[in-house]
């Protein structure tokens, strides 16, 4: 038996408590709101306020609290302006049910904001059109925000600059918008003047205006309200040609209108764009004038105390004082008597480099100088003078006489012929035959390897028993291969070894003397050495043979035999 459910879902309405979608709602409304989740159509008293199906005006301040359900429901949907599927006969319910799948948030936002306008009210439409939005019935104002209403947006501050082009050329304009207004009684006259002076500043027109530009041209240049010409007509395609025709003077009348237009449009910049060389001077002069005019404008300003101070500073620090220099002014020149420099001359006279006839140590020089200066401070002034003159003359002469040493210095170089020469005889005779035995020089011949002779083969055959044995890694019938000298040696050694093995080994006996023991041990060592040599020889032989076989196999081509 089926237990009766507490709630039959098909007949129930479900609401979910969600955060409010619109954050700019009133503060007295709670942050959470019940939103209908299920697809039913029943109305719940108490919950119907926030149900967009029952209350499409929720969140919206209109008087249309009690509207027809069906129409209201239709319009509040996101798909309100979409065409109905299936034409006239389509089921309204199916449309509704599809709508319920729409996310809750969009439904909420749409319902709360623009749910019920129908055609937008006139004032809103006007505003939208003014802002540039298309008039398609959508309320773009919901995405717009008023500036300056809350603290988030900015606030408009009108521009305080006066427009320069409206000023007449003979009028000076001062901008005192920043002057604070004070009551006359409160402030003294001086203070007022200071305040006004500091806050006011002259409104300057651009340099080319001050320079004496044609007022018409200036007006055109300053034209900030849009040009008279269309953007297409600004410049003729061959404006350079037109412009060039002007100085030539040919058919200037025809070109007056376009030339004027182009000239005025480009102003001074046009002149600088002349390609010819002789026009460059004009260009430079224009630039200079411009610079000068800028400078003059600066000077037209009333000079302040600070300006004067700066000029003083500039003069003091950076200017040349030559024209102000006074030779007579002892303070400027500095103090120095010529008598202070008497010692200089005496130093020079006693300088050994100049007058170096006699070698004098620095102490002697000093003594001599002291004696000369001490002995004649005041007396014999004239004699001193004469002496000094003489010395000076000699010094000058000495200094000048470097030209005497212009002799050619001859350097003697030993030539190669003078050296002692060796000839072949001498060289050869220094060598003796005692330590050098010359022999006949011959080219080393390749050792001829001969195949083993028949007799030997037979001999070997007897030894091996008629079987050809393949030995070694390379599986070669070593007995029948041509032996190389090493191999021969190895064989000999082997045979020797065998022989030596057959030799009776000296056995240590009880009564042998140390010499005998030594002899015995030496003999044993010899045997072992020989055995080692034989073994090595054999190994080398095998390796050589296998290498040879591999080479051969490589030459002849791939074969079934694998040679390791």
């Amino acid at each position, binding site marked *: 038996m089926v237990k009766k459910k*507490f709630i039959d879902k098909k007949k*129930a309405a479900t609401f979910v408590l969600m955060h409010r979608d619109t954050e700019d709602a009133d503060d007295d409304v709670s942050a959470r709101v019940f939103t209908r989740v299920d697809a039913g159509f029943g*109305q719940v*008293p108490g*919950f*119907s306020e926030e149900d967009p199906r*029952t*209350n499409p005006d929720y969140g919206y301040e209109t008087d249309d609290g*009690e509207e027809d359900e069906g129409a209201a429901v239709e319009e509040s949907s996101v798909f309100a302006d979409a065409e109905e599927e299936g034409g006239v006969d389509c089921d309204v319910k199916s449309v509704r049910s599809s709508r319920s799948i729409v996310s809750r948030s969009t439904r909420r936002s749409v319902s709360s904001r623009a749910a019920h306008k129908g055609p937008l009210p006139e004032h809103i439409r006007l505003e939208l059109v003014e802002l540039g939005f298309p008039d398609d019935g959508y309320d773009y104002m919901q995405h717009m925000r008023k500036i300056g209403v809350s603290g988030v947006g900015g606030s408009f501050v009108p521009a305080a600059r006066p427009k320069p082009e409206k000023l007449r050329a003979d009028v000076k304009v001062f901008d005192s918008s920043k002057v604070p207004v004070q009551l006359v009684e409160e402030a003294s006259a001086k203070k007022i003047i200071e305040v006004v002076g500091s806050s006011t500043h002259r409104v300057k027109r651009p340099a080319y205006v001050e320079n004496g530009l044609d007022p018409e041209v200036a007006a055109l240049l300053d034209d900030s309200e849009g040009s008279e010409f269309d953007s297409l007509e600004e410049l003729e395609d061959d404006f350079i040609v037109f412009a060039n025709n002007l100085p030539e003077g040919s058919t200037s009348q025809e070109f007056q209108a376009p030339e004027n237009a182009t000239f005025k449009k480009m102003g001074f910049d046009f002149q600088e764009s002349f390609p010819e060389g002789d026009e460059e001077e004009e260009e430079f002069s224009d630039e200079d004038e411009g610079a000068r005019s800028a400078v003059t404008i600066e000077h037209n300003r009333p000079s302040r105390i600070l300006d004067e101070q700066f000029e003083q500073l500039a003069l003091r620090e950076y200017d040349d004082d030559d024209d102000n220099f006074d030779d007579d002014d002892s303070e400027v020149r500095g103090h120095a008597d010529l008598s202070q420099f008497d010692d200089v001359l005496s130093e020079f006279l006693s300088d050994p480099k100049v007058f170096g006839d006699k070698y004098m140590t620095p102490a002697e020089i000093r003594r001599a100088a002291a004696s000369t200066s001490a002995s004649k401070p005041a007396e014999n002034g004239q004699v001193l003078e004469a002496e000094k003159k003489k010395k000076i003359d000699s010094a000058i002469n000495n200094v000048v006489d470097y030209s005497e040493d212009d002799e050619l210095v001859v350097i003697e170089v030993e030539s190669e012929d003078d050296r002692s020469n060796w000839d072949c005889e001498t060289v050869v005779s220094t060598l003796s035959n005692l330590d050098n035995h010359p022999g006949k020089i011959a080219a080393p011949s390749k050792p001829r390897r001969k195949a083993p002779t028949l007799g030997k083969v037979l001999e070997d055959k007897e030894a091996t028993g008629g079987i050809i044995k393949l030995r070694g890694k390379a599986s070669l019938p070593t007995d029948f291969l041509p032996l190389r000298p090493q191999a021969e040696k190895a064989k000999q050694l082997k045979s020797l070894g065998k022989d030596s093995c057959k030799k009776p080994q000296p056995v240590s006996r009880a009564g042998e003397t140390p010499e005998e023991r030594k002899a015995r041990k030496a003999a044993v060592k010899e045997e072992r050495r020989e055995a080692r040599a034989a073994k090595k020889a054999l190994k080398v032989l095998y390796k050589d043979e296998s290498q040879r076989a591999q080479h051969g196999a490589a030459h002849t081509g791939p074969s079934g035999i694998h040679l390791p």
Partner: protein
Amino acid sequence: MAMPMKPGKVGVEEAVETVHRIRITLSSKNVKNLEKVCADLIKGAKDKRLKVKGPVRMPTKVLHITTRKSPCGEGTNTWDRFELRVHKRVIDLHSPSEVVKQITSITIEPGVEVEVTIADV
């Protein structure tokens, strides 16, 4: 059980309110908040002299996520085991819907989802 409804316009408050069967489902990841909300709701309902059943604790659903700890494939294969626990409580009431709205609007903790199902609508 539901009293016959008087005919009236939508949005106009009825003089006699019908009592509906209402199921409030609370779900949350946080047990403490959930229990607190439950207790508040039941307390509020009892204050209004409503017939309350609950809270019925549904079995918690645990979502397991097991991932490799390492961002690359190198190293010992250590695994992280994450889980997300969803707790669910159900409260059944018999009350008119406006009262329920009042009750639920008062007590709200963050992280607790409230769903109200009204029967026979």
